[in-house]
């Protein structure tokens, strides 16, 4: 491709002896939608930071518009027309849309005094570029995630952008919002603006991009046309491993149900929910936004007590009104947002692992026993293959998949009977996702009862033995996962 907009050639970068990028090349044509994929730690973000001038490459060079550049500073990148939209969008929630849009360009013009009329003009021009309808006087904090993203995109377009880099832009978006985003990306393409789309979601890569580049461990694995890619190849390129997509089947089911839910209801969330879960089973619960699936997980764990119906634990009626009561009854919850609800991120991995079983690590004088703690931490780190040089490191140093393993290990240390997982693999890369699924299936085989609450339908179908579909707070269908298809479940959900 002779007429590329951006060519990064043989880029090398090391951090304190770690070779983050080992001669990676990237080629983007004008108006092209290019997808950059790779697992956590593959070097995606390092490459983006080199292109946008945040880091300097140790070797290789970058060509933009045919001109070879030895190094790029952040200002150079902006002047060239390279704009990065970060995952947090870098917006000000406390300011209006107008101000969010106009601040950057006013500041880069080195203005000192605010002219509100000019600010409004700038903002109006910015939203007009992609036909984004929004109240300019609304506070950005009151917008939806998708709208905030549009604000960030409009702002990026004001600097005569020619290449827009979007760092995992779809993470927090609903399906509909993703479609709208793709619409905007196509509009940009029509205006000759290239998009580098960072994602590790297979379906998005297929849907939007024309060409793709996959990195693994700092090396370029493959680059090519998306039409030559299929899902097995994609997983293989990403991880270097082959996965067998085996359907989970419940074996050696327990005799009596571990937990039985009878006509459970929580006003405004769900009603008349009944199901049984036996040991050795994985039950999938799926549904839309307002289906009440998340509230159900909270009710099962006692965070929001159900206001009608009963929960029977091993045949005995039990009141689950606090998380303590749930743990006492042998129920654990892996919450949807593991970062804010399931982990103490700044604390050590070791502390996070043992927090739920801390009472059992006391010696006979009820004093905390540090030797017991060390042994227990070692056991869990090995059993769950948590990739860390030192369990005393802060939990936030781990990748998403490893963090999720810590949450799992924490619960499994407590010898629970039932584990409820809400969105167990949201934001987790493919390799770790498979590992987590393997762990869950293994646990079920050992006799645990598992409930996976998820809207990732392939995940539900592959890992569950039964699927319950919720709609508007009620069970609309219960099916054997062996015979369920994505289409069948979707039609029940909608």
């Amino acid at each position: 491709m002779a007429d590329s907009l951006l060519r990064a050639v043989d880029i090398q970068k090391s951090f304190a002896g770690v070779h983050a990028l080992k001669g990676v090349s990237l080629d983007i044509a004008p108006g092209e939608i290019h997808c950059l994929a790779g697992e956590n730690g593959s070097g995606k973000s390092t490459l983006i930071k080199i292109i946008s001038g945040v880091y300097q490459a140790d070797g290789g060079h970058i060509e933009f518009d045919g001109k070879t550049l030895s190094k790029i500073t952040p200002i150079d990148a902006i002047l060239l027309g390279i704009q990065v939209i970060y995952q947090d969008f870098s917006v000000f929630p406390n300011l209006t849309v107008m101000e969010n849009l106009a601040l950057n360009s006013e500041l880069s013009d080195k203005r000192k005094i605010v002219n509100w009329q000019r600010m409004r003009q700038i903002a109006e021009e910015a939203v007009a570029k992609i036909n984004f309808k929004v109240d300019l006087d609304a506070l950005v904090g009151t917008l939806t995630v998708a709208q905030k993203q549009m604000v960030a995109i409009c702002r990026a377009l004001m600097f005569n952008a020619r290449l827009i880099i979007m760092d995992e832009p779809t993470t927090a978006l609903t399906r509909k919002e993703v479609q709208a985003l793709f619409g905007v990306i196509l509009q940009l393409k029509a205006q000759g603006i290239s998009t580098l789309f960072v994602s590790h979601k297979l379906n998005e890569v297929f849907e939007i991009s024309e060409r793709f580049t996959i990195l693994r461990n700092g090396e370029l694995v493959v680059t090519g046309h998306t039409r030559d890619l299929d899902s097995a190849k994609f997983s293989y390129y990403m991880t270097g491993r082959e996965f067998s997509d085996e359907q989970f089947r419940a074996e050696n089911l327990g005799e009596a149900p571990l937990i039985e839910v009878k006509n459970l209801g929580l006003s405004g969330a769900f009603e008349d929910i009944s199901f049984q879960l036996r040991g050795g089973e994985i039950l999938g619960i799926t549904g839309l936004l307002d289906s009440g699936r998340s509230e159900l997980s909270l009710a099962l764990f006692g965070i929001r007590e159900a206001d009608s119906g009963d929960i029977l634990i091993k045949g005995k009626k039990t009141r689950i009104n606090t998380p303590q009561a749930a743990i006492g009854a042998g129920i654990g919850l892996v919450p949807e947002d593991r970062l804010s609800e399931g982990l103490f991120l700044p604390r050590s991995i070791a502390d996070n692992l043992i927090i739920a079983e801390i009472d059992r690590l006391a010696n006979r004088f009820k004093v905390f026993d540090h030797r017991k703690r060390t042994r227990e931490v070692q056991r869990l780190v090995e059993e769950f293959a948590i990739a860390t040089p030192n369990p005393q490191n802060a939990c936030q140093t781990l990748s998403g998949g490893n963090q999720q393993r810590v949450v799992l290990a924490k619960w499994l240390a407590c010898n629970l009977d039932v584990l409820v997982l809400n969105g167990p693999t949201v934001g987790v890369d493919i390799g770790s996702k498979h590992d987590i699924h393997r762990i869950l299936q293994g646990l079920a085989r050992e006799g645990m009862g598992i409930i996976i609450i998820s809207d990732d339908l392939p995940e539900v179908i592959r890992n569950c033995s039964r699927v319950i579909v919720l709609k508007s707070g009620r069970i609309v269908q219960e099916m054997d996962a062996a015979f369920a298809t994505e289409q069948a479940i979707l039609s029940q959900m909608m």
Partner: protein
Amino acid sequence: MQNNLKKLTKRNETYIALVVLALCLLIEVRSGQFFTANNLVDIASAMVVPGLFAVGTFMVIVSGGIDVSFPALASLTSYATTKMLLDAGYTGGMWLPILISLAMGALLGAFNGVFIGLLGLPAMIVTLGSSSVFKGVMQGALGSVQLAVIPPGMRAFGTSALFTATNPVSGLTSRMPVGFLALIAVLLIAFFIMRYTFFGRGIYAIGGNETSAHRAGFNTKRTKFLLYVFVGMVASLAGLIRTCMMQQNHPTNMLGMEMNIIAGVVLGGTAISGGAGSLTGCMLGTLLIVIVENSMILIGIPTIWKSVFVGALIIIGTGVSAYQVTRAHRIKSSRRLGGEVKA
């Protein structure tokens, strides 16, 4: 019109204004003395010093910081200014004391600014420390004692009145101090800074999200440094005016004011987490505290109960807004927990 009315109901200032009005009416009904000319002038006069402090506190809180050192800063600069001019036998006008005060206030503000702005240390810790340092310098190094006499120029400024209001029934009179003009001037300057300069918008931006502010091109370090310099100047001006109005300098009687001032600012709708708030709300909140402090006696509540009322007001006022924040958050998070089908 209806649209404007709807907007008003969404604004925090509307509610605080209604509370102030209700309190005024209650006092009026109970005593018949609230809306008399001299009482209103008394309240305006009592607003001057807290009002100035509140402006500075407001700006700091909007930036996401906090300043508990301003009473100590004001005490130190006003004491040092008065003492220096007394020792020099100064008999001139008010301009020199103001200049000396502002210069010292800027210097001490810069002391806070270096640690908070340039070095990025937590504002609470820095100002707790500097508060102690300022007090120590004043009481130790300067050996402060009460100054019963102040220079004639400052005395004249403190006693001169814009006008005098008389209560037609009791015949009591109250003077509107010239210092009130200083409050008006500082309010206008602060309003201009916060609304019409990129320095001021930077303060809001930093309070909203400091990383984003840096990425957007604000010099966040310089903005925070200059903010504390400015706030130091405003506080020192307040200290000087208080000395003039009281006709004496008492080195410790401003200490401890910080909590009521911060409470007033937060009652007025300034988000304690930074990034949001208006000067109007900040003044209304301060007015509420001043009225409670000054007028409880008019409805027969003994002054010893004053602090109970102020305390209750702070808990209720800030509690209600904190409750609204957590409720909004809960609604949002349960919506988020609900999730939607994600692609």
